[in-house]
């Protein structure tokens, strides 16, 4: 009996020991990486003995292919999790149960660590810790930079209308020489981070990249499959009611952003290939793409921000809200200032509007590899790993009777 009591005590410790009380929302830096990972390990072992949530998303089927959860497995699962919250509301072991299972929260805490752990250069990972501040500083610096530039180059913020000729305010070559390197370095930093992550979660294997796996991943990413709740009805937000709003606002944000990106790309082609210089006509492809995308990039982030404010407090990691909201705000401002610039491009305030817009875009580029922007890349990598591994035989053949 004494032995039993010891076992029972161990079990109780196991069940309760490393749990951060729900809603206490310790800042990311107060919980060590090892603690966050141990919590996911603890929870995954409970989930693996239950498995009721298999239909919600890829995390649970991926879990059933494992009996032990090493660091790489935990990093992979954490990035596979879309923080949809469905499993929390469905969980018979969620708080106030003594097992205190909260998968989305435990995953979110590890996920934030992976962003900073894999960041390149390594020291810059710290920028994730107080990401709201990082974004705010980048924004202030970006806007200030272009305002000062405007003052220096034309001696004032206002000017005679120049019919939308941006390059009369900031010469084209100057802009290219500023944005191109920042953008390329941002892409490089993100790429290195994601490559490090990929090497860690797929150790020692040259994964066979089948066309089907790539196609499935592409579809999962573009459709945002894992915000559909597994049944198409969407996922919880404020409470256990399912909603497709998060998925739809995210679509508006993502496709809005991509259209804006396409607008810039087309304009670049016009400039260098055809020699057609801005400003472009209202009915021209770059302006149409940018306007439609810009509207999406206004509605989408506004909706996501609203949902974020209403989000159930036990979803995800409260300490990361500044990062989420900072990024959302930056996207919103990018679009808002861009559309304002379009509206006012024939006025004397065009230079001011342009400086502000360029400052916001610069902040977006600067913080790209060290903020929420990275989530899409890490999650896509995790989805690709899932699409590959699900096509292999399950190494754990339990309960086949």
């Amino acid at each position, binding site marked *: *009996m*004494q*032995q*039993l009591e010891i*076992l*029972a005590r*161990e*079990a*109780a410790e*196991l*069940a309760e020991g490393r749990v951060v009380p729900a809603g206490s929302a310790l800042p990311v830096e107060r919980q060590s990486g090892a603690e966050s990972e141990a919590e996911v390990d603890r929870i995954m*072992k*409970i989930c*693996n*003995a*239950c*498995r*009721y*949530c*298999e*239909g*919600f998303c890829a995390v649970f*089927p991926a879990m*059933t292919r494992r*009996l032990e959860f090493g660091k790489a497995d935990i990093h992979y699962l954490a990035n596979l999790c879309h923080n949809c919250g*469905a*499993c929390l*509301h*469905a*969980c*018979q*072991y969620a708080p*106030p*149960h*003594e*097992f205190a299972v909260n998968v989305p929260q435990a995953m979110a805490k590890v996920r934030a660590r992976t962003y900073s752990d894999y960041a390149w250069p390594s020291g810059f990972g710290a920028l994730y810790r107080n990401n709201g501040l990082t974004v705010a500083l980048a924004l202030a610096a970006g806007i200030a930079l272009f305002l000062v530039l405007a003052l220096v180059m034309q001696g004032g913020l206002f000017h005679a209308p120049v019919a939308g000729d941006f390059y009369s305010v900031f010469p084209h070559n100057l802009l290219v020489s500023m944005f191109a390197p920042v953008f390329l370095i941002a892409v490089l930093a993100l790429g290195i981070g994601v490559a490090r992550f990929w090497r860690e979660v797929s150790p020692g294997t040259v994964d066979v990249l089948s066309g089907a796996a790539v196609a499935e991943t592409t579809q999962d990413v573009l459709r945002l499959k894992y915000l559909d*709740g*597994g*049944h198409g*009805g969407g996922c919880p937000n404020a409470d*256990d*009611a399912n909603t497709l709003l998060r998925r739809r606002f995210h679509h508006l944000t993502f496709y809005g952003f991509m259209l804006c990106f396409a607008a810039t790309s087309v304009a670049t082609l016009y400039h260098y290939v055809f020699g057609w210089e801005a400003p472009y006509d209202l009915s021209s492809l770059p302006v149409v793409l940018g306007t439609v995308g810009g509207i999406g990039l206004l509605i989408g982030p506004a909706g996501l921000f609203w949902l974020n404010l209403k989000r159930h407090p036990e979803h995800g990691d409260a300490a990361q809200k500044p990062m989420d909201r900072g990024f959302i705000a930056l996207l919103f401002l990018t679009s808002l200032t861009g559309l304002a610039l379009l509206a006012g491009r024939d006025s004397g305030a065009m230079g001011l509007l342009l400086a502000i817009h360029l400052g916001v875009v610069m902040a977006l580029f600067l913080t790209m590899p060290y903020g929420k922007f990275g989530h899409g890349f890490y999650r896509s990598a995790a989805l690709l790993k899932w699409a590959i591994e699900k096509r292999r035989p*399950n190494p*754990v*053949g*339990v*309960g*086949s*009777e």
Partner: protein
Amino acid sequence: MKHEANRTVDVLVIGGGNAALCAALVAREAGASVLLLEAAPRAWRGGNSSHTRNLRCMHDAPQDVLTEVYPEEEFWQDLKKVTGGITDEKLARLAIRESSTCRDWMRKHGVHFQPSLSGTLHLSRTNAFFMGGGKALVNAYYRSAEALGVRIRYDAPVDRLELDNGTFCAAWVGTERIAARACVMASGGFESNREWLREAWGQNADGEWPADNFAIRGTRFNRGVLLKFMMEAGADMVGDPSQSHCVAVDARAPLYDGGICTRIDCVSLGIVVNRHAQRFYDEGEDFWPKRYAIWGRLVAQQPGQVGYSIIDAKASGRFMPPVFPGAQADTLEGLARQLGLDEAAFVRTVRDYNAACRVGRFDHTVLDDCHTEGLAPAKTHWALPIDTPPFRGYALKPGITFTYLGLKVNERSAVHFGGRPSHNLFVAGEMMAGNVLGKGYTAGVGMTIGTAFGRLAGAHAAAAALQQGVEHAAA
């Protein structure tokens, strides 16, 4: 005429799990005003339904998540087999037929289904799994009920009813009297009433009260208050009052709400010994899903109500991973020490077993030819020597899932007094499941009974209440 203030509710539903919610939803759909009283606070609502995962379903063709066919007759034969004939064919077939049509209604109220879970392939033909499990189902039903205008009160345990010659008048929550035109009771069995369990299981020859060492796998709110009240009020009862569904769970399971994850699924892959390091039953008698439900009782009959499931490295990965890590050692002596068992006795038991193993072709998916010879008790299948370290051991204790005692009903799910059905008092779920399931268990049948009789009870309660309302208005 209608009383505007403090209007008498048409249908009062007592309970907050699957059967209660089905009754409330159907009664409301029929046009009755409905008040549902859940004894638990909101965070613990749903009773044992929150721990369920599927519904056994009759179907004559493959459906969304159900493979092949599961005809009425086969379902009935399965039920007859597991209950040993302690069932009521008319009521059983009613539930079986209902299971073939209820899923569209469930979907309408927000329940989603998913394919059978990994490790449960044997259920893909017979059982429809709820996406996210029973708590997701319970959440969906509460949400739908609220949207339809069912009034819901938490922390409202009913102590007693006010009856008048078999007619329901009112329910009492503490000092509050709640009148209604009809009532559905669906407030569960008595498995979380420890005093009652103690009394039901009695004292053993060693002077122990076995029930003191039981875990309750489900809710702590099934205290059988209304069951006892109805028994004393002279309602007709069914089911053996001393019986409960009892499985072996991890001895470290919490006292309540351990649910599914505390089960230990490696019994058939190794041996099980008691506190004296002796084996006591054939671990390989039949497939584990068909045998797990007898092991609770077997362990309950052992000294200290404890057993130890012992496996070696060969078993690793062949069973559902347990929630708590087992004791682990590279020697049998070391494992015995960790488990607090007598080393010499334990090693002797394992050696005797190993020597008796006649290993043929091991196959866990069939009743294979690996068995013991000259050993008592024998292990008749899957007998492989325990010889490959690391060795693992899991302490087991009995875990009670539900009790069989219930109220006798007819095909309208009405409560009976002296063989006569009440016209406005109905019962559903675990409180009457014993009519259909007098003994034994088969996966998902509790939810089948709860859904079928919950819906029936709700419909008949609404009809009784609205009829009464009509008579009232005419008078």
